[in-house]
């Protein structure tokens, strides 16, 4: 029985894409975690990230919480980059798989219900983790829709 389930999971994983990782399938708990620490643990396990050379940028004051531009860039050879924040009902925002040949350099826009802190975790190819945080003010909450 177990073997059948395992093979089914393996086939599903393969169908998703050989190069891509669907973190929604592999780490379902991270997407429902309410706090940043629980979300990080659900995704990467119990880790002690070190401060790394990471450029995490966002506006200091966001006038519209519904669309906050964020950018993250690092030269640390990375496997994945995860973004969390503590202002919304759930903590995880997005998890990037850093693909061979593409730099860890991403720009995206997020929603934040209120002022808070964005946390970025870099999963290094060396097996170590690095983190960076950025705190910002949101003058008009972004989950009003």
């Amino acid at each position: 029985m177990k073997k059948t389930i395992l093979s089914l999971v393996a086939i599903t994983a393969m169908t998703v894409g050989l190069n891509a990782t669907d973190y929604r399938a592999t780490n379902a708990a991270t997407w429902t975690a309410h706090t940043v620490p629980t979300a990080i643990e659900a995704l990467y396990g119990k880790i002690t990230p070190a401060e790394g050379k990471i450029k995490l940028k966002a506006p200091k004051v966001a006038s519209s919480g519904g669309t906050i531009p964020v950018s993250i860039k690092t030269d640390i050879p990375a496997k994945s980059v995860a973004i969390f924040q503590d202002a919304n009902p759930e903590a995880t925002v997005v998890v990037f798989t850093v693909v061979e040949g593409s730099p860890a350099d991403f720009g995206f826009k997020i929603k934040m219900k209120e002022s808070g802190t964005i946390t970025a975790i870099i999963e290094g190819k060396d097996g170590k983790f690095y983190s960076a945080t950025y705190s910002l003010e949101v003058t008009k909450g972004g989950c009003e829709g």
Partner: protein
Amino acid sequence: MKKLMLVLSMLTLMATTTVMAGTAEAPTKVKMKIKAKSKKGVVKAKIAITHNMLTYDQAKRKGKEANFITHITATVGDKVVYDASTSQFLSKNPLIKFKFHGNKGDMLKITYTQLKGEVFYGEKKIK
């Protein structure tokens, strides 16, 4: 006897999954604002996807079903150049920027999956 049953059920499962994967809903092509420019072999891509990105909270308030993008992949041919598992917390009409190694004339394809599993895509030639 038990082993034979196990093997048989495994094979049936494999066959069913393959058939299911094959008959999975074909991705629907949608309009997407794709800007991809190549300079010295490095492509800067900027994509604006039209999507409500309705969170669970917003959906409850509006009496609708939550619907947001859960996965975005960018490919050139069969090579994945960008891969993100996403949440309800990307903004409405999410704008994404990324870089990869690519050349002018290559076709950049952006595929995204939403909460219920429907897949959509857009593509544009790299300038």
